[in-house]
């Protein structure tokens, strides 16, 4: 034995990419505490389930996806969502919050109606304002598939709107 393998040293990955992960989580969660929790969660995923990274073109692409999924799940949490809405939507009503807050709040409200992959694309497109090329890069799919996912999101959103109208009526 000459030296142990150092295939994907978690500490090194963390040193190199924790900054990216933290920025991403802060951007989506608007909470330092929750952002740090998200970063810890995704790097433990690296350690425990590294096969998740296989289909991604780069570690950064996987990291974006992992952080986004984690944050979406956090936003599904009622307590977190309520806080998000209080923080982001209420100021938005006073025109003090950026469009990101509104988009995030809208995405949060739709989470339960959207498939995870669709919700992820909605965040990339509407919150991050990524191009279809960038989204396709992260997802490892074609631009057409990105368009299809966004179309499905629009359909789901429209259906939800109709259902809400009928419920109110």
């Amino acid at each position, binding site marked *: *034995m*000459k*030296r*142990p*393998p*150092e*295939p*994907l*040293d*978690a*500490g090194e*990955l*963390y*040193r*190199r*990419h*924790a*900054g*990216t992960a*933290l*920025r*991403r989580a802060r*951007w989506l969660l608007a909470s330092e505490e929750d952002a740090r929790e998200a970063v*810890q969660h995704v*790097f*433990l995923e*690296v*350690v*425990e389930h*590294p*096969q998740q*990274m*296989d*289909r*991604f*073109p*780069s*570690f*950064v*692409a996987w990291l*974006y996806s992992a952080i986004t999924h984690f944050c979406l799940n956090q936003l599904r949490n009622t307590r977190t969502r309520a806080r998000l809405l209080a923080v982001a939507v209420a100021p938005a009503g006073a025109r003090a919050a950026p469009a990101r807050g509104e988009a995030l709040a809208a995405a949060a409200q739709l989470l339960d109606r959207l498939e995870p992959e669709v919700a992820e694309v909605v965040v*990339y497109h509407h919150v*991050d*304002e*990524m*191009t279809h*090329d*960038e989204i396709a*890069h*992260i997802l*490892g799919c074609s631009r057409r598939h990105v368009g299809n996912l966004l179309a499905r999101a629009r359909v789901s959103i429209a259906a939800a709107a109709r259902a809400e109208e009928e419920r109110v009526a």
Partner: protein
Amino acid sequence: MTARGQHLSQFAIDAVAVGQLDGALRSTAEQHLAGCGACRDRLEATRADDAAVAAAVASAPPAWLEARPVGGPALRDRRRRWLGASGLGLGLADPAPPDGVRTPGKTGGGGGGGRATSAKGPTLSVVAHVQRAASGAVLELEEDVAVEPGDRVQLSYTAPEAGFVAVVGRDQAGHVTLYYPAGGTASAPAAAGTGIPLPFSIELDAAPGDEIVQVIWCRDPVPLAPLTNGPAPPPGPPARCAAAELRLVRSSP
């Protein structure tokens, strides 16, 4: 990249900052950065932020992550059909290799790790490590080191300059397996450095026959389809690329 706005997305900035944006996205980002001071400032700020976080992590690594290799005590389990191995060297097919890169002759069957290098300067090479399924011991692969089903293999490379890497395998039946990168259409970015692990490993199964694994390094991304399509062995690495072959030999029962 900038179709939806006047500036690069944060994803593009983050990926450029760590050298993980490739292909058309990288070209577009570089073109934009050349003409956009605001995005250059964002990139510099991102790099500074990354450096600050990295320094903080280095001085006080989190206890929950410290000294933990990815995949726990085992290496990553993703691929199949690696049934024994010999060493490999990485040689340049490019008539104009990068400075300091050795230019070996064509490597062939029977292994021969790191052989056929001739030029001066640092070595461009790939090293394989195997973790024994039975004992958990980790060995650096040399010539004619047999491995068993269940063993796990990890490749690391040394390259004097950044480029793009793909790894393909071809078994005795002529079936081609793309080992790396998984997904995508082009070879993946590979940083310059020594002993850099490729981000995948392979669990050997009991499939019969030898397999040739070719590691291809190029200065630019190359499409993967020509590397994996067709029954005949690849005729060699594309122009401006380096390649090496690893012969995987099933151990005798």
